[in-house]
Each structure stands twice: as C-alpha cells, then as structure tokens.
C-alpha cells in the first residue's frame, strides 16, 4: 500500500481552504501517496481528534492549516511524538520545533500592501470601517495590525467602525448594512479576508453606494471578478495554491531524505491584486 498523507484544513466551503486542500491533494497523489483530506471547521477539539485519526491510520505526514496558534500546539506535538511529521500552511503556531515546516503567507506584509492601496484609493482622507476576522484566528489580528500600521499614519483617515464578521459573507453583509446606518458617510471599507469583502461589497451595491472603496485579502476568484467589475478595489493574494504544493513537496523530500533543507518558518510574500493584474489571477495563482 502507498504511504498516507493526511491534509487537514479549516473548512471546504471557503474557496481559500478548498484550494489549499485540492492543491495539496493533487500534488500528493502525483507523488504517489494516498491522501486523506479532512476539515476541522476551526474547532480545536475536532482538529485534535483528526490528528488522533492520522496517528491511528499510521499516516506518513500531516499537512495542516491549523485551528489556532496556541490550541494546536499540543496536537501537533502529539503527532510528532507518534513519529508523524507535520507541515503547516497558511496559519502558524506559537511554538517552533514541533512542526517540520510552517509555510505561511506573510500576512503582515500583505496587509501593509492592502493598507497602502486602500489609503491611496481613499485619497489619504475620509472615514472608513474595518471588518475583522475570527478573533480566535491569529491571522485576523496580524492583518488588522498590518492595516493600521499603515493607515494610522494618515491623519486624514478616520476609522469610525470596527466589527468582527468571523470571516463570514452573510455576517459581513448585515453588519455592513447596519454600519452604513450609523456612519452614512464612510468612504471605504477594509476587510480581513475576501469572503467578508464580498459581503460588504454586496451590501454597498444594494445601498447604491457604488463609489465606496473596498479592499479584501486572499485573492479569491470571486473577488477577482468583483475587481474587474469595479466593485472592489484590491486584495492581497496569498499564494494558497503554491503554499500547499510547496508543503507537500517538502514533506515528500523530508520523508525520503530526512530533511527539507529549508528553515522551519518560511514566509511567502503576498502580491497585491488590482484591476492591473486581476486577469492573470486564477485559483490563488498569479500567472506571469
């Protein structure tokens, strides 16, 4: 029987994670592994049980987009103790030396890119709102910090509302509508990820505020289309596809040679997507 690689991602209903899962699966199959692709729905306990399963199935390696920087440490350590190397993607954990590699898109750098584009589009002044991600997801915090490290330098820019929409499109929609009521004259909305950007933009379209600037984060195809239609200004592409495949390749090399030849932490820089390059974007990959 072939060796088994277990791929665990938060969910399969956010295109971002779906891409991760598909990319990793395809690559692993290509390299001749059996694949078990699981979702933990951002539930640390479920993730822990899935790691148990990987151990029970005597997996050769685990590719993991984890459910929380701290709550995931023990689970990954458990896998290591059971002799199963883990390769983290997208989200990092707050402990080094447990996972073999942590390939994470540079959320901070990506956020600063998005922030600069947002400030520029706003003409460096005006009121704006921020939609942040799941509070329990470190990426949410990192991105918010990245945004503000840029935006707070412009005295003209004033954040008049900040709400978490839990990465959710529906929530972003209704929160956006309510925020618009309290703050009728906001000029822009900066969102922690693309699903929330989509929700916000839908609300703005419905309210006839087509000129309000929206910036997202991820680089999903939905947002790409919205950018081309002028509904959204920009998003920071996390090369999810590339990251996932890198992780599998490194896992393969590690299993064969006992080392990846790379440092544990690998930051992959994000790329800003605007009208200029949107057409080259597909499935979180930017063709040259």
């Amino acid at each position, binding site marked *: 029987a072939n060796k088994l690689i277990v791929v665990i991602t938060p*969910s*399969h*209903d956010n*295109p971002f994670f*779906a891409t991760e899962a598909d990319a990793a699966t395809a690559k692993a199959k290509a390299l001749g592994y059996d694949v078990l692709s699981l979702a933990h729905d951002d539930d640390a306990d479920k993730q822990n049980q899935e790691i148990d399963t990987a151990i029970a199935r005597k997996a050769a390696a685990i590719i993991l987009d984890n459910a929380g920087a701290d709550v995931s440490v023990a689970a990954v350590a458990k896998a290591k103790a059971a002799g199963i190397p883990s390769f983290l993607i997208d989200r990092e954990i707050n402990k080094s030396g447990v996972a073999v590699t942590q390939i994470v898109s540079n959320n901070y750098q990506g956020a600063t890119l998005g922030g600069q584009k947002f400030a520029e589009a706003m003409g460096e002044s005006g009121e704006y709102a921020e939609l942040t991600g799941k*509070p329990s997801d470190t990426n949410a915090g990192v991105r918010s910090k990245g945004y503000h490290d840029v935006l707070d330098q412009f005295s003209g820019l004033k954040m008049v*509302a*900040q*709400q*978490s929409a839990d990465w*959710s*499109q*529906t929530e972003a*929609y*209704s*929160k956006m*509508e*309510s*925020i*618009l*009521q*309290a703050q*009728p004259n906001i000029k822009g909305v900066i969102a922690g990820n693309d*699903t929330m950007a*989509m*929700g916000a933009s*839908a*609300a703005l*379209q*419905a309210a006839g505020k087509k000129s309000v600037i929206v910036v997202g984060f991820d680089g999903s*195809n*939905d947002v790409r*289309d919205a950018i081309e239609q002028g509904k959204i200004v920009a998003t920071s592409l996390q090369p999810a596809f590339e990251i996932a495949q890198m992780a599998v390749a490194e896992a393969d090399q590690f299993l064969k040679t006992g080392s990846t030849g790379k440092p544990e932490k690998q930051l992959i820089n994000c790329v800003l997507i605007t009208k200029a390059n949107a057409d080259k974007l597909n499935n979180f990959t930017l063709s040259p």
Partner: protein
Amino acid sequence: MKIAQLRGLSLGGGTSLSLPMLLISMRTFIALIVVVLFFSITTPNFLTPSTLIILAKHVAINAFMAIGMTFVILTGGIDLSVGSIVGLAGMVAGGLIDVGIPINALGVTIYPNVVETVAMTLAAGMVIGGLNGVLVTKLNVAPFIATLGTLYIARGAALLISNGQTFANLVGTPAYGNTGFPFLGSGTIFGVPFSILALVVMTAVAGYIATQTSFGRQVYAVGGNENAARLSGVRIARIKIAVYVISGLCAAFAGLVVSSELVASNPASGESFELNAIAATVLGGTSLMGGRGTIGGTVVGAFVIGVLSDGLVMMGVNAFWQMVIKGVVIITAVVLDQVQRKMQRQMALQAQLASA
C-alpha cells in the same frame, strides 16, 4: 406589522381574544418598545426611516423562519432544520441560475427563469419539510431528533451541490432569460423593499390561517391534547406533516432572500439560524409545549431580537458583549413576561375579592 400582531392576537389561544394570550404579546411588545427607546437615545440616527427599513429587512429573514416555526411549535413539535434549509435553498437557486439544469442526453442545459427558479427552490424546502413531517408522524421519530437529522442532511446536501463552492454574482444572463433574481433581496415596490412587503403579507396570511381556518384550529388542538384531538376527528398525521411543510417553505423563502441580497449563495449560510427563529417564537409567547401562541407575537419577538443585534452593532459594542447582552435580553424579556402576567393576575384577583 403592529396591526398584524394585534389581529394575530385577538384571535390567538382558542376561539378569540383569550386574556392570557393578550397579556403575553403585550409583554413582548413592551420589551420591544423598551429596546427601541434605548437605542434611539444611545445611538445616532437609529430612529431614521432608512435605519428602520434596514432593520425590518434584517428582521424579515428571521421572521420568515419564525412564522413557519410557530406552526410547528404550536403542534408541540420543533424544527431544527430551518437553518440548513436556508443554506440549501440558496444553493439550489444559485445552481439553477449559474449552472442551470444540464440534460446530458441532449447535451443541452435548461436555464429556468427567475419565477421557475423560485418555485423549484420553495419546492425543495417543502420536500425537506415533508421529510420531517413523515419522520415525525409515520415513523414517529421525536421532532427534535428528526429535524436534527435533516439539519445535517440538508446542510450536507447544500455543500455537495457545489462541492462547497460559492455561487457568485447571481444576476443571471439576459440571453438565458434568467435575470432578475436580485429583486427579492434589494428590489422595492412603491419604494418599500420587497422583503418587507413579503413580511407583512406572510404575517397576515399566516395569522389568518392560524386563527380563522379549521386547519389552524386543528393545529392548536393537536398541540393542546393530541388524544382529544384524535378522538374529535382531527387527522393528526395530516396536520403535523402540513406544519413541517409550511416551515420548510418559509425557511426556503428566507434562503432565497438571503442569497438574493448577497447576489451570491454560500452553502454555509443559515448556520444556527434555527436558534434565532425559535427564540423569536418563544419570545413572542408561543409555548414549546404546544397549543398556545400567536403569529403576531412571533413577529414581535423577531423584532425584539433584530432591534437588539442591529442596535448593538450600530452602537459599536464589541462582539463578545453583544453575545452576553443577547442572552440576557432573551431571558429578561421572557422573565418580564412571567412577572407582569403574575402581577396582572394578582391585581385581577384583588379586585374580585374586593367586589365579592
């Protein structure tokens, strides 16, 4: 709405205006007024027409589900599957618009127009509801467990339709003659948003069914004492299946409006909506034991919840506190309900004693 509530009221309980029912909805109504006042004082432009319209639109979605839920709870049942049906309905509609119905044999694809799409989606909701009803009646599975099962099944189905993907940009294609879907969510008639009109109509119709038709009367009877109802010639199974079908229909309608607003449908949408729908129903004075409750009360309950969550967002209260406050208000509203009713009864009795 208020009218609807009052008529719902005046005919609730049993034949007509029974005192306890009146009090119940009055309490919820007071709770509503309290929260509204609070926010109009604390929150800038809360009481503006435009805000209230958005508010009503948000309430509508929950109210659609809660109205269907009310019929189910009146029979002593419960429907946990409505949230999943919202998600499923969105995906059905989204799929029909973006992908259509491929007929592989002929190698062609049929794109139903919006009316057909809506009809098919509502039908899908009614099928799940019918499944619930059959499970509860023919296979006598406890409603809670039957609808818990369909909660998972419908959600899974929603995810499988697109393999988890979102159907984006549901504007349709003029060439296919399937444009116009966004109207449900953002269209207006004489300047009033469609979903608000839909809410008014649905409230009126449901209130009428509950209080004026023999079907409605039998719903109350089944919830009040199933044995007695059966011996009185009520066809229990028929009534129960019907209420679950109604609930599925209402949930599917809510799902249509949600994805029409987003102009996109996401298989995860509607998660845990059932809790809000049930909360609205119970806040509105419907007894989970069955047999007591009014449509009007339910709609008022939905408004209490809606005003609350929107108001807090507008105030900029942080998400964690929002959760705590929501919990406290749900409980307080019901407690107020109880306390006030007790006081009322006491006073009535004192009066009688004095007169006697």
